């Protein structure tokens, strides 16, 4: 589909991880990120999401372009069967002329068709992420039930991924003129998707390096 696969550093600067993504110091959104800080001044962090590669990509590539960024991310949190301090995300970004929410919906449906092998009904509802505007939570109609189950908490919708139209400040941080270009971005919880796909009930198995876990996956 013409998406580039990009990579970025795990040890990231505060600027790329926060500032350039429209999350200035003292922004309440920083609370929800539980950042591992690598120095007392907070100039370096372990990236809390794959989103910093959005700005790195904009600086490197001339629009229009499309890219995905799979990678390791870090959050300072206590681990249990469903929480890990290290997990994987996949960022997606498209920048072009005239890209709209409609294109985002189209791209997301195509993505889900690829992952689940069937057409899945989706809905967008407002979600707040400082680097997109408008921002959405994308829910998918639960593929595991008709009428409510434990996976969708009986709502028939599964909250699947955050997405939105790239905030003009982020485009500007990447050196792109927001009057001429627009873009959409999405963030997929790769670890969670893998767990859903292979019915893995403990996230800690993913990075545990246990051969009994690894062997069935060639």
């Amino acid at each position: 589909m013409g998406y580039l696969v990009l990579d970025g550093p795990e040890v990231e600067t505060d600027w790329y991880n926060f500032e350039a993504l429209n999350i200035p110091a003292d922004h309440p959104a920083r609370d929800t990120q539980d950042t591992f800080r690598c120095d007392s001044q907070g100039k370096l962090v372990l990236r809390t999401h794959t989103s910093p590669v959005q700005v790195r990509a904009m600086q490197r590539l001339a629009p229009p372009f499309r890219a995905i960024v799979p990678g390791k991310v870090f959050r300072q949190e206590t681990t249990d069967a469903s929480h890990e301090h290290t997990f994987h995300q996949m960022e997606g970004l498209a920048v072009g002329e005239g890209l709209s929410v409609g294109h985002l919906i189209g791209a997301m449906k195509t993505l889900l068709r690829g992952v689940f092998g069937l057409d899945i009904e989706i809905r967008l509802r407002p979600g707040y992420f400082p680097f997109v505007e408008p921002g959405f939570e994308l829910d998918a109609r639960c593929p595991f039930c008709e009428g409510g189950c434990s996976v969708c908490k009986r709502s028939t919708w599964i909250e699947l991924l955050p997405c939105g139209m790239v905030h003009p400040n982020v485009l500007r941080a990447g050196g792109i003129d927001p009057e001429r270009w627009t873009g959409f971005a999405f963030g997929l919880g790769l670890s969670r998707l893998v767990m859903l796909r292979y019915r893995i009930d403990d996230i800690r198995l993913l990075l545990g390096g246990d051969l009994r876990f690894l062997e069935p996956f060639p």
Partner: protein
Amino acid sequence: VRLSYRWLGRHVDLSGISAEEAARELTLSTAEVESLERFAPQLERVTVGRVLERAKHPDADKLSVCQVDLGRGEPLSIVCGAPNVAAGQRVAVATQGTELPGGLVIKRSKIRGVESQGMICSERELLLSDEHTGIWVLPEDAPVGEPVASALGLEDWVIEVDNKSITHRPDLWGHRGFAAELAAIFRRDLGILRAELPSPGRGERVPVRIESEACPRYMALAIEGVRAQTSPEWLRMLLLAAGQRPIDLLVDLSNFVMLDLGQPNHLFDRARISPEGIVVRQARSGESLRTLDGELRRLEPADLLICSGEPVALAGVMGGEASRVEPGTRSLVLEVATFHPATVRRTSARLGLRTESSARFEKSLDPTLPPRAAAHFLALLRELQPEARLAAPPTDAGAWKDPSRALRLRGSRVRALLGADVPDGEIASILERLRFGVERREGELAVRVPSERATKDVTIEQDLVEEVGRIWRYSNVPERAMVAALAPPPRDERRALVRAIEDRLSGAARFHQCVSYSFVEDSLLAKLGELDAPHVQVVNPVAEGFSRVRRSVVPSLLALLEPNRRRRADVRLYEIGKGYVPRVPGEEPVELHELAIALAAPAGDGAAGFDAGAFARLQGAVEDLVRTLEVEPLRWRAPAPGETPSWAHPGHSVVGTFGEATEIGALLGRLEPGLERALGLAGELRSDVALARISIDALLAAPRRPLIHRPLPRFPLVKVDVALALPETTPAAEALAAIGRAGKGLVDSPELFDLYRGESLGPGRKSLAWHVVLRSDERTLGEEDVQRFLGRLEREAASLGGELRRE
């Protein structure tokens, strides 16, 4: 944030709109509703009863036997221990089979010989308060026989909203904000908040001096004639539904105003405020304050304080204990202020003191809100305590500015960004319903953003597009396909290389790929003697000794050897990942992209063949891998001093370079024997371990050696076996090179088939035996070619300090 559906109804007419519908529409247009639950379902399971008669229990002084009418059949006989039960009261009765909170199921039972057919409940038994010295006495007009919930009009729903979804919306931290959203969604009118502040002509204002920019507005109201009292049922129930424990009327009203309008406020006992009034200033180092929760807080200059002589409150976070409202308080100072969000946030984060108040201030509150909140408090108070009144005109200090702003909105921009055909009229209507001011101009709208939305959330045109989109509904946006030139993206060499490595190692080479943590444990680094090497280190690790980021991927694999060897005889693992080596503190470290491979097997007894060891097997796997990657083969050599990594046995390791490169591209070695025990590979886990570390960057830079077909030999070949006796220290690679030189281009792929040590060779010597094939593309070779080859090889062997062994 917990919302009471009934409370929302105080601001907007919700008739015909169920709680479920309201919750669903809010999720689709405003913020994520996490759950919708019945408020206090236990109140639906208890019934209003009327006490007909109270008689003393024949056998217990403190118990009474009550006859209670439930409006049907015979009255129930209930044994009750409460001192306040009396004939004529309306009470809450749990009958047989009723389950109370906490799981207690009411059964017919005998208490001291008297049968009891139910229970008269206290407030605590119904989770309404801690009150349990007596039963809960209901209003006299409560209809007998009805469930308490409907009889008292307490049926309600609790709508729980995900706080993360409203961090950008200071206006949604109170019921009125959500009511305004419902009004916009359902096209209903938002009720008018009637609240004008009275200003008595007499009395002296509370003096307020603001000495910090972190306080744009501070209002102080002296209120006299107040007294402690329990709040009325309606107020207590609304607070309970919103998750706030009722305490006392004054405190309850303060909380009510915060949960209603989103504006925190604070009550001081006026007797504890000095006549000099209030000073808002930054803390001085060394100052401290005992906060309401009883903790003594050490203050720092970054903290903003409310002072009256001494500090009396941590601005926007928590009040002080000494100036709190007490049951004897007769006169109040009500504080309603606006504080700088980051200041409140920093203090609250530093002290680990997150309060309902700090959560709101850090969202950037509307500075025009305080007078309305103050008037709201006063109006509610005077309804319940008519003798309460302002003792002086309100004080209103500060250099605040109205944040409401003008923005330009192009209808074309809305349509382009949403990808939906929203007419201009609809755009204007939606914004007006959301209380934006709209003026239609040529091709665009001049939009006035109201102050409660303008502090942070709505600052640019794009923000208005979101306002329109969320009310218009994203489900009305048609799906579109992206149109672009059909050009494949440029080839990504690194990614292709990683894929090729994975294909080979996970495929024919039968290794297992893992992805492990980037952190490496201090205890492992200590074993490796690398604790002092510079590491990227996090200052807030999840666990002690788990703060260092790996410099290389190899240690991650070392940590996996022992647990996996417990489960499997052969451990074959690899990881492709990043290592980080710091340069200058605070600057980006050097990123190393690496392939690490580990191979561990039970340690043999030496009986196996010379090539069965882990080192040889891994070297073979690495060379096979490199060949399939179509780059120049690795040139191995013994490591120079300082080149051997801590995990490698210096005498059993090699470094490899690609082609003419001088930079080391690969390291391969047996595990340093001294580490075996430290890594838990002792006893029955004693292992033969080899590890390799290959730089992905070096592989990318390595000269290409494309696989190209070589014509099949046209002339017959000659096979000859040779054995070279050499000093123990001479690597096989040098012997191999010597064979090549002796062959003068005729040698084709020599194959090592034996390693021998024995008395006949003498001490410190070994013999390497090779199958050698000689062939030429030009002619048939004869015996004389073999003899010339052996002659040259004899001289080559001598130059290596060895000899050609003749059988």
